[in-house]
């Protein structure tokens, strides 16, 4: 079980869990009609390094004053990953609403146990304390996207759920970066 902090902070922090975040899939224009497709994710977790988020916030707050005249520390976007319901993941149905069938995982199999013990490199299992009203969830490290910093800052106030505490968020970050940098040997 992880530890979380429900205190809402002024800025976005690594490990923050936010609800109802949209991912823009595409925008097309054809014959004068614009079509935009978005995916609404019920929950996402912030993966961007916390020091980068802190510097971004500090420099934006004091823009133009003193040593902070440049935008050198500004971020363009924040990296997030969706949280999926563990039970839906077992069934391979967590993306059924967007017409994606995922592999099923037998909870009693080695694969299922590896998932909840965070042995499987692709997934990160999160079990929240009882006082946090979130179901057991899974991050799939193959799924991540970025959100414009200003947009996320605007949403942060209303859509903040909780923040994963330091040691646990760093574990997520380390496992995510390890998965991204894996080398597929022949």
């Amino acid at each position, binding site marked *: 079980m992880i530890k979380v902090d429900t205190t809402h902070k002024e800025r976005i922090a690594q490990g923050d869990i936010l609800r109802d975040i949209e991912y823009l899939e595409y925008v097309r224009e054809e014959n004068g*009609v614009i079509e*935009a497709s978005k995916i609404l994710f019920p929950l996402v977790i912030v993966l961007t390094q916390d020091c980068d988020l802190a510097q971004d916030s500090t420099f934006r707050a004091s823009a133009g004053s003193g040593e902070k005249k440049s935008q050198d520390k500004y971020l363009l976007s924040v990296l997030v990953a969706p949280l999926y319901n563990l039970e839906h993941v077992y069934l391979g149905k967590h993306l059924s609403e967007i017409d994606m069938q995922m592999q099923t995982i037998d909870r009693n199999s080695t694969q299922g146990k590896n998932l909840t013990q965070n042995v499987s490199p692709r997934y990160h299992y999160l079990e929240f304390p009882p006082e946090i009203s979130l*179901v057991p969830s899974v991050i799939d490290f193959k799924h991540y996207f970025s959100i414009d910093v200003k947009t996320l800052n605007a949403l942060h106030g209303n859509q903040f759920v909780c923040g994963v505490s330091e040691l646990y968020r760093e574990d997520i970050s380390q496992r995510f970066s390890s998965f991204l940098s894996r080398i597929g040997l022949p």
Partner: protein
Amino acid sequence: MSSDSDYVNISNKYAPSGASSTKAVTAVVSSAKDNNEIETAMVSSATDNRKIEIENQKYGSAKPRRILVRAGIIHDQG
């Protein structure tokens, strides 16, 4: 409990030790439709006074869904 829930998530709930068979205990359930809500439900003790026998229901929460937005462009012919 939300009436429109598809599923409910009932975590381990144990009646107080020594509770009579008729004593009601409180179970905490999370709404299937909303990841963030916790609501309470009264559950009567089952055959075992010390334990409420509710096995895992399907844990529920919203799934990602797609939203399409279409808008026409008004061309200025002037």
